[in-house]
């Protein structure tokens, strides 16, 4: 069985980004970049399936600039067998475009399962996995906190409002990860060294012949409104008094 794991290069979750003063975009020039945390969880899950003997091959794929090689090397250090970079100067494709590109990759690679993040922490879209599944006509197990693969089926327990739901999907299928699916491993130096020698294939996105246009675009970005300064209260009594008489919320 083969698993495809799409991984996105994003601004590290510890970095607090700000809009550029002219509102044309977000200032990420010197920001630390990392693999999207949900994609690390997807990589970890793919590796556990491989280590459990369910999966023979794990392929990581990233779409973006040449810098995404770093992200793919991390995926290889997790243990992916090979990696594919679909290179483009555009690094902010809409999810619908990413889903077209990934569908083309799926057509070539024919994986049995795609495991990917539920959400990229930069655009916060939470769309690509569902779009890919819809486009391929496959089942989708989104926001997974548990995944079991057996008898040609993926059993996915999903985190939903109010609890969890478990679905059984016929394979091939797309699974998107939630935070509690697993705890990604710490990448050890020998694995990072080994990853440097693993195959990383680079191709231009344009070669795939998919439509790269989207009719949705971000026209301006701004900082959210600042909240006014708060006050320090000295005691629980003062807090209650202020909540009652000043803020009038209790």
């Amino acid at each position: 069985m083969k698993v495809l794991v799409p991984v996105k290069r994003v601004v590290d979750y510890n970095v607090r980004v700000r809009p550029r003063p002219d509102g044309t975009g977000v200032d990420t020039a010197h920001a630390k970049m990392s693999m999207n945390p949900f994609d690390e969880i997807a990589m970890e899950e793919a590796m556990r399936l491989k280590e459990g003997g369910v999966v023979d091959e794990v392929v990581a794929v990233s779409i973006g600039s040449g810098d995404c090689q770093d992200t793919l090397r991390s995926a290889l250090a997790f243990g992916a067998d090979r990696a594919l970079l679909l290179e483009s100067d555009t690094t902010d494709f809409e999810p619908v475009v990413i889903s077209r590109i990934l569908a083309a990759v799926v057509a070539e690679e024919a994986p049995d399962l795609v495991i990917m993040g539920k959400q990229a922490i930069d655009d916060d879209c939470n769309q690509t996995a569902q779009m890919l599944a819809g486009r391929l006509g496959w089942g989708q197990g989104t926001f997974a906190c548990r995944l079991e693969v057996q008898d040609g089926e993926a059993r996915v327990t999903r985190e939903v409002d109010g609890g969890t739901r478990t679905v059984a999907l016929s394979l091939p299928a797309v699974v998107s990860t939630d935070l509690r699916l697993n705890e990604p491993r710490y990448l050890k130096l020998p694995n990072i060294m080994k990853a440097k020698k693993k195959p990383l294939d680079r191709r231009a996105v344009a070669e795939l012949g998919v439509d790269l246009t989207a009719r949705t675009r971000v026209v301006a970005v701004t900082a959210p409104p600042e909240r006014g300064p708060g006050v320090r209260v000295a005691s629980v009594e003062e807090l209650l008094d202020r909540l009652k008489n000043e803020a009038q919320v209790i």
Partner: protein
Amino acid sequence: MTVLVIAEHDHHTLAEVTRRAVTAATALDGDVHVLVLGQDCAPAAQQAAALSGVAKVLVCDAPLYAHPLAESMARAVLARAGEYTALVAAASSQGKDLMPRVAAGLDVSQVSDITAIEAPDTFQRPIYAGNVLARVVCEEAIKVLTVRPTAFAPAADGGQAEVVAIPAGEDPGLSRHVDATMTRSERPDLGSARVVVSGGRGVGDEGGFALLAEVADALHAALGASRAAVDAGYMPNDCQVGQTGKVVAPELYIAAGISGAIQHWAGMKDSRVIVAINRDEEAPLMQVADYALVADLNQALPALRDGLKALAEKGA
């Protein structure tokens, strides 16, 4: 322009998030229709028809929709999509699961988690955990949108829409419901509660959370949590407030033992009044809270509970 809102319900009761999605839909100009997919879901359909601003309710009542499976639901939505200029759902776990699949079926982009509608094609949405607000223009012929429930008021009753039954679609045969485990709570719903009391790692142990629950009870509040508290097993996962959990915007948000990581802040910063209780005065949330109390929770929580009870007795 006619807009279709995809309803969320448990077959009997229309979800409040759908009332809020209807409010957003009415801001798009044009008639608003609501699609109810369910089994024995006539009560939910009636509630949708009674919402002010709704012109028509389409009901598809079939065993296929006994559980909200995106594969079947997307098909049903796509079968009707051509009659509409916008398809709208709440950015709830159901809406997030369903709508991108619909968008892919139409090969259009989706605008997720809209917090304001500036024009029928121009929206505001937060990105980067709410550190940045993006203005997005969507020029698709059919717009697929999810709206952040806390950013829109619930639609009031007072409508009298016609209810039309429509036939069920085919089962795509891709997925099967196995089971569901829903946490039952007597407390107000986290997404719409007037007051939310949240605990973090600092609340420490389950004893601490029992105390926090007493504070919540005294305020008729919903209980929330940081991710660290959920990870530690103190609270169920659907209580997680934040960038990747629930977004809340109550009148009063009390954060106890929560440091205030940006991912948590993203989920509660639109609360009207924010209280932080932490023994570390340097914690990020203590810098931005409206009221910050430097205290150990082991003392502060019992005092808060007792003080609230005393206030309630005085008021009664």
